[in-house]
């Protein structure tokens, strides 16, 4: 009897989750990495595999670190926001091309515009693990000392950019 109840119990847990999910208000969850130094990396650049890019190169400035991939549908939603932001020149955006092929990624940028100062290629997802990437896209705001100040899970919308990221970036740039 007990064993036969197991499928029902699992199903009810899923339903409970769905039901709660239907009614919950959106809210933030803090990432354990916020307030800690950004994990170190040194990866080949997307535009030139012979050149390396490291998080140390960005020390001394506030920057956004955007995790993306050409296979990621939700990345398309945020892409125009990133392109507009890069044109405004407020804050440099660096990309992490996560578990992707170089050719697809280059084509993707060629078709949609390239908002990144540079993109690091994380072909096997090793750096993604260090950063605790659970899905693509994710974006980190990193301060002058190389400490993660904020993590955005999912695409950056205009509202998120205006209400959270830009005020934070301005505050960090003054410090």
């Amino acid at each position, binding site marked *: 009897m007990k064993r036969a109840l197991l499928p029902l119990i699992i199903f009810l847990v899923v339903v409970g989750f769905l039901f709660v999910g239907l009614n919950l208000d959106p809210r933030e969850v803090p990432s354990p990495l916020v307030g800690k130094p950004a994990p170190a990396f040194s990866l080949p650049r997307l535009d030139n595999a012979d050149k390396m890019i490291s998080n140390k190169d960005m020390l001394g400035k506030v920057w956004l670190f955007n995790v993306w991939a050409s296979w990621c549908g939700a990345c398309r939603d945020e892409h125009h926001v990133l392109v507009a932001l890069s044109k405004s020149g407020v804050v440099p955006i660096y990309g992490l091309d996560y578990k992707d092929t170089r050719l697809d990624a280059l084509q993707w940028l060629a078709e949609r515009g390239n908002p990144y100062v540079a993109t690091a290629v994380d072909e096997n997802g090793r750096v993604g693990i260090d950063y605790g990437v659970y*899905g693509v896209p994710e974006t980190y705001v990193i301060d002058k000392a190389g400490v993660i100040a904020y993590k955005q899970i999912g695409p950056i919308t205009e509202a998120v950019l205006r209400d959270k990221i830009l005020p934070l970036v301005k505050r960090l740039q003054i410090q």
Partner: protein
Amino acid sequence: MIPEIGHFALILALIVALIQGVFPIIGATRGNVVWMGLAQPAARAQFLLVAVAFICLAYAFATMDYSVTYVASNSNSRLPLQYRIAAVWGGHEGSLLLWAVILSVWTVAVSFFSKHLPSAMRARILGVMGLISVGFLLFMLSVSNPFERLIPAAMDGRDLNPLLQDPGMVFHPPMLYMGYVGFSVAFAFAIAALLGGELDSAWARWSRPWTTLAWVFLTIGIMAGSNWAYYELGWGGWWFWDAVENASFMPWLVGTALMHSLAVTEKRGSFKAWTVLLAICAFSLSLLGTFLVRSGVLTSVHAFATDPRRGLFILAFLVLVIGGSLLLFAWRAPTVGRGGKFGVVSRESFLLANNVLLAVAAISVLFGTLYPLFLDALGLGKISVGPPYFDTVFAPLMAPALFLMGVGPIARWKQATLPELAMRLRWAFGISVATAVILPLLLGHWTPMIGLGLFLAFWIFATTANLVYQRLRGSDQSLMARIKSNSYSWWGMVIAHLGIAVFTLGVTVVKGFESEIAVRMSPGDVAHLAGFDFTFEGVTEIEGPNYSASRGHIRITKNGIERTLINPEKRLYHVQNMPMTEAGISPSVIHDLYASLGEPLDGGAWSVRIYHKPMVEWVWFGCLMMAFGGLLAISDRRYRLKSRTKPLPENATEIST
């Protein structure tokens, strides 16, 4: 007027479905023959009513009646007639109606081909199918009515989604739904058996052809969808692990497990509870899949926000159907008994292991599919889980399943021995290892994944060849007589398994050896890929019925000898102002040469993607072989011997897919 007739037919169908769902089931419990007898006429009346509703909606599309909201949202006066008809199932409301039509088709089929069943069993089966229909009709009539009027009427329609304006899309959804809904028959059989407490081998034998037929439709439906994605999306991919595909793939995995589990239950009386659970899960996943895709829950969570009643109805329906049947399972399954005992090394164990692997694979796909939904519903943002997750999880689960597939049909029932199996399979093993090492080196390069894929493909080829050889050798009869002495269902199994090998070979070769380039091409430019020269001869502008297109002309030559001309198109559909890619493909057994147009660049140049896809057609051909094997199994003569109720004798060794 016509839409009102359709609407009214749906209301009548709901009443008939209630009668079909309530009285026969109660009658079966009380032994009331009159009440049980209501099931058949109700099933047939319901079919006629739902069909009338469907024809009314199709008529509204054909005559461009834009006073119907659904027609105005999914059609346009310049849409060709065949796509106006296909547009009937191009949106949410209409695809629910298609679902209801197909459910009533299956129900009528059961009502005609179930004369040999005990009357109580038959009444319960039709009753359960009636209850499912009640849920769908109620959903349509309350919150998703396809006949809702638009007053004042629109001047013209908003057009069918251009992605769906393709011959493949005309056939793909009905095939897929035939598969999805077909599992409702196996589900109804399982629920009826649980209600009546008669889980015996007869029940398994009755369920088998229905399950296999549903699986055949689902296989063809998934194949058609994958093929459509290949030439319509212009990325050269044929499987993207997106939510819509996963929704069809999960029932397929569980349905595959169910077919094999039913075979064991029929032949050996084992796995009864497990088989029932799989039957419930296959249909539950079909339901979940339909709703996830069609309610717009996954593509955008906002569907819930704009019409929360829809989301709640869906959830309540899922709870009633799935929760109710799992509760019934928890209550009745422990009394079922365990069936025949079997040793650790036996065909039963191999089939059980394969079943578990398939089920775990389905669960991992389910998890990957729902995870973004959970996060999204919780407001944690939109996320793509994407191919990296699925590739990582899926390959390690499928590799042992494919390996066991080679061993299972050769092992004995009840008790086999490892040394004996090793003796029989040593040649097959040697051949497949040798192929896996040598073939990639001949083709250019070797990686562990290519080696593993080729090993598994040739392992299945070799073990199946061994199986066929053992069956056909050593007899004085003519070869034809020996071929005929094996049942259709056994040959069906052989062909379906070979189909898996063909599929695996295709996937491995195309994944391992495909190549692509993305180039900027002006008229006259030549690109080189895989030994072929692709000459871009410019584009011409053409006008379609409801789109205009730039058609590229690419001439393919090899060593100066002309091979073929392909014409990729970039279309712009006027009404929705949506650009679409039509790939230009030259298919063949050995490889596909594939090109798609990107964006126009300055000076008459275009960005062009060119792909060389070796053996990609084998992927779909393998699926067709699986479906054909399934059809062969259904045509087995023992399913036509309606009077036979005894299980096969103990020493029977056949097993079919």
